[in-house]
């Protein structure tokens, strides 16, 4: 994700010079993104052992509050960030997508841990979704089984960087500022063996690999 700010009429050096003299010169985009990136409220929602690390990250030792994310909201209507922390079983997947759809824009998703990324050690199983990115657009992937709280903090900092780099207008605008991108995701239905559909083709394509025959 590019961190490039919008083209500005003055250079960074000139702006720093002004700041030294007590004059704060900024753009609407910069201050809007600065505010958003430092008040990312995650949804209070855990799925498996990764949730324990997420709780540890929010406690005093690691202190997620330093990044403005200490307010874990118990309702998706008040949350900005969905941390998919753990194994998403096929039975749970529709509920996770529903929670995502109930969150207001702008919203972000972190896939925390091997299970949320790809199914992890349960990838071969009949009952585990092989990655939440099959149904939800994921912004930051945090590998690990489970990831350390420091890794979650790093993932959050990456997300803040991504938010700060977002434009509020133009073709690079995030989905909630554009009309041509739909806001909600397909909620899968339960089938006799698998979810229907097993993946959202508009979001996820199988990686193309070349297999020698």
């Amino acid at each position: 994700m590019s961190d490039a700010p919008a083209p500005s009429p003055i250079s960074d050096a000139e702006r720093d010079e002004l700041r030294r003299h007590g004059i704060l010169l900024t753009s609407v985009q910069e201050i809007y993104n600065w505010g958003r990136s430092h008040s990312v409220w995650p949804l209070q929602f855990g799925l498996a052992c990764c949730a324990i690390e997420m709780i540890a990250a929010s406690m005093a030792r690691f202190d997620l509050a330093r990044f403005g994310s200490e307010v874990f909201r118990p309702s998706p209507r008040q949350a900005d960030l969905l941390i998919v922390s753990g194994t998403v079983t096929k039975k749970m997947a529709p509920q996770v997508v529903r929670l995502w759809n109930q969150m207001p824009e702008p919203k972000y998703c972190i896939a925390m841990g091997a299970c949320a990324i790809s199914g992890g050690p349960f990838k071969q199983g009949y009952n585990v979704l092989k990655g939440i990115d099959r149904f939800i657009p994921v912004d930051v992937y945090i590998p690990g089984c489970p990831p350390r709280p420091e890794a979650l903090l790093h993932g959050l900092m990456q997300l803040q960087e991504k938010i700060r780099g977002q434009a509020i207008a133009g073709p690079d605008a995030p989905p909630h500022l554009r009309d041509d991108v739909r806001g909600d995701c397909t909620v899968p239905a339960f089938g006799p063996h698998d979810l229907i559909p097993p993946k959202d083709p508009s979001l996820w394509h199988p990686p193309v690999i070349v297999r020698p025959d």
Partner: protein
Amino acid sequence: MLPPLDELRRLILTTVPAATVTIVENPGPAAQHSLLIGADHALAIARFLRDSSELRFDTCSNVTGIDWPEREVVDVTRTEVPNPAGGPPKVIETKAKRVVPGCLEVVYHLYSVARKHGPVILRLRTANRADQVTLPSLTPVWRACEFQEREVFDLYGVRFSGHPDLRRILMWDEFVGHPMRKDYVEPDDYEWEPTPHDEVLAKAQRHYPAPPQERLPDA
């Protein structure tokens, strides 16, 4: 003090004379033997174990299922035949194959908090694995069995009669099949794997034919 298992069996048979109670030996180092009880009188036996003042098994800590598929057993019988030429008698081994029919088994672990003893392990077996898979539910005796019997129903397909709410608990309601059975075949819904190998490779090849590859010009 918990009586030994044969004493417990005798106590059960005095209270419920029509019941069939067999002691299943555990040959392993744990030597945790169990009681196989007939399904017809399971409820009466469970009530006795819970209500008897000296036993007082008030806690059912665990319910689980076992799938015993049909298996073939070879019985070897040795007969000694006198050797006509003298010397030691010949030993002739005759082997007879027999088929042990399969069944589904439900295992209950009982403890007594009041009397501080346990566990006593009860086993219930269905008649077969196909159509006669009904067993009496022990949920009326121990409420703790409710979710765990649902789990056994979900994963093994044992139907518990008298259960207040027999639904799937881990899999979704629309799911077909009982995944913990030994002969369960996983649904063939594997997606393209980034690093396919072994069975996954075979499945991936079935589902996703290889894309037409451009021939590299010979160097």
